[in-house]
């Protein structure tokens, strides 16, 4: 190995060496963190909702007339009957929202009526006795709501039903011993609500960063919205008939009552559209980070190619002298590969510190998770390979410098 003389030579070319090492360091720091952000965003995008996404669609139904609570309740019941009798529809339920819709209703959960600090936070869904069946939720303990338990809920009413069905994530959070069924908790009220059922997975409506610690913590109350503004209908199509159901449902509802509208934005959406809308920013961020990584890696590779090409041109005579003194093609190739490896290792050492420093700042500022070591190790390997790949062509050119070059005039 020629490490000592190479280091000695590099000390005489400090500017270029330091610049490339710093470029490698910055690239490592940024790429590691960017890849981690991409991973987190992709994991977020892939989170399961627990509902039968391929067969579901949602309708935002806005009334065209001002109804009283009773009138609205009757209209909703009528709509549901219409929807449920469509040949392409398996079931339908009225609700305040659906997983990944964004926003939604969140309640603090406490274990005692006089508790001042929340135990945790839960996303609240309201629905009738068809809610579980329509969304395709998997009941893993207890029972479903029965029709008698479902109450109508008017505008500005704060109804806390005596029974609830909660997600397993929330059950485990509230009762880590696995004995949640039959237990009670309080939800922004001094009236307890008892857990009668537990479903396997039910994602929150909200997908924004703040709610990440509560992802999967959901509860369902047996309430039927009877409000003057409108209601969401979630409709489950029979397998393979989603398109038919989405075409037939609005027609059927309009036929029954023209005094309504389905807004352009979310008046009629399937889960593919819901997912795309919900994770648009995550996908955009992942793509942006990916582009940043690619550009940085390309710039670093170009920098290495440029500097090495310059050095090869500058040292052409020196390479000829080495060849004259007995260096083979391979010796010259190894020289430049080793030289790049040493610069890369220097850059990587600094870059590792920078990567963790940048991550700490991101953790403090944007609540990003702690950077796993595997990302840094992966980044190190990538940059070493990138450096060796980038230096190979100029190094190969250097190895082809003939020994006669030693005798050419300087």
């Amino acid at each position, binding site marked *: 190995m*020629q490490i*000592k*003389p190479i280091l*000695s*030579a590099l000390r*005489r*070319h400090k500017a270029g060496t330091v610049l490339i090492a710093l470029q490698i360091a910055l690239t490592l720091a940024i790429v590691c963190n960017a890849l981690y952000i991409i991973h987190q965003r992709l994991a977020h995008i892939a989170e399961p909702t627990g509902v039968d996404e391929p067969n579901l669609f949602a309708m935002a139904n806005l009334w065209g007339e001002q109804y009283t609570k009773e009138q609205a309740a009757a209209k909703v019941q009528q709509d549901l009957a219409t929807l449920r009798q469509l040949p392409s529809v398996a079931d339908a339920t009225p609700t305040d929202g659906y997983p990944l819709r964004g926003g939604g209703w969140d309640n603090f959960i406490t274990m005692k009526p006089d508790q001042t600090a929340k135990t945790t936070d839960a996303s609240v869904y309201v629905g009738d006795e068809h809610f579980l069946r329509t969304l395709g939720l998997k009941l893993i303990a207890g029972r479903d709501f029965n029709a008698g338990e479902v109450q109508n809920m008017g505008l500005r009413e704060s109804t806390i039903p005596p029974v609830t069905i909660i997600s397993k994530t929330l059950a485990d959070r509230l009762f880590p011993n696995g004995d949640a069924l039959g237990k009670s908790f309080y939800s922004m009220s001094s009236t307890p609500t008892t857990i009668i059922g537990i479903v396997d997975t039910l994602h929150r409506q909200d997908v924004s960063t703040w709610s990440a610690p509560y992802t999967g913590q959901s509860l369902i109350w047996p309430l039927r919205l009877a409000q003057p503004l409108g209601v969401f209908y979630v409709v489950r199509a029979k397998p393979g008939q989603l398109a038919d159901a989405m075409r037939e449902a609005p027609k059927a509802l309009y036929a029954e009552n023209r005094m309504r509208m389905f807004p352009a934005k979310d008046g009629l959406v399937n889960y593919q559209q819901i997912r795309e809308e919900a994770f648009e920013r995550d996908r955009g961020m992942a793509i942006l980070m990916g582009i940043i990584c690619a550009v940085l890696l390309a710039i670093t590779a170009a920098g290495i190619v440029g500097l090495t090409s310059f050095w090869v041109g500058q040292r052409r*005579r*020196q390479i000829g*002298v*080495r*060849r*004259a*003194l*007995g*260096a*083979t*093609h*391979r*010796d010259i190739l190894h020289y430049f590969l080793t030289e790049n490896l040493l610069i890369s290792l220097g850059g990587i050492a600094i870059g590792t510190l920078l990567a963790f420093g940048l991550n700490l700042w991101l953790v403090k500022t944007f609540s990003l998770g702690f950077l796993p070591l595997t990302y840094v190790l992966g980044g190190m390997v990538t940059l070493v390979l990138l450096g060796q790949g980038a230096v190979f062509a100029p190094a190969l050119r250097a190895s082809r410098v*003939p*020994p*006669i070059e*030693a*005798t050419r*005039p*300087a």
Partner: protein
Amino acid sequence: MLKMTHLSKVYRTEVVETYALRDFNIDVKEGEFVAVTGPSGSGKTTFLTIAGLLETFTGGEYHLDGIEVSQLDDNARSKIRNEKIGFIFQAFNLIPDLNVFDNVEVPLRYRGMKAAERKERIMNALDRVGLASRAKHYPAELSGGQQQRVAIARALAGTPRLLLADEPTGNLDTQMARGVLELLEEIHREGATIVMVTHDPELAARAQRNVHIIDGQVVDLAEDPRFHTAYTAAAGQIRG
């Protein structure tokens, strides 16, 4: 030690062929100190680069230390350069990024020699040229004469069978040139074979034997009718 028979070197372009060496014959015995002289463009540097395996030749034969070199691949030629030949260039050709010690070490590293042996050889070679105390200096910190001594140390450290010197004093003033020449003579007295290209008649006169090259061929100045008159006159002047 070095024998070229009917050797030729032709540079070809699309329109013209130029003979740098033509029917070139030379035989240097082991332990000889031969000076190769000739006017500019006569082919003496081409001879030296072919002799040092720095470039290939077009035709003929070249035996170096008993090995016919025309069929050797690049790696084998590198190995022979490294083990059998020591080069002393007019421009010294030290590597400016390396200090004196590291410069002398270059050919030894390519030989795969162990560090301890390398160090011993380097210090012996530097001691021999009187520069052991300058081992940590960089070439730019040395005079021209000292740089050429380092180059000689680099050539000697590998204990080559043949030393090839290309105008070794060409870039030096008279005093430094004298010192370098005395060093070469001393090395020769110790048994080294030296082939030195020069156009300095005074320097050539210090060699054991002179070989003159004209138009890519070795000529005997006393015998060649083209130069007979001029040679006789010049010899008369020197004798007178």
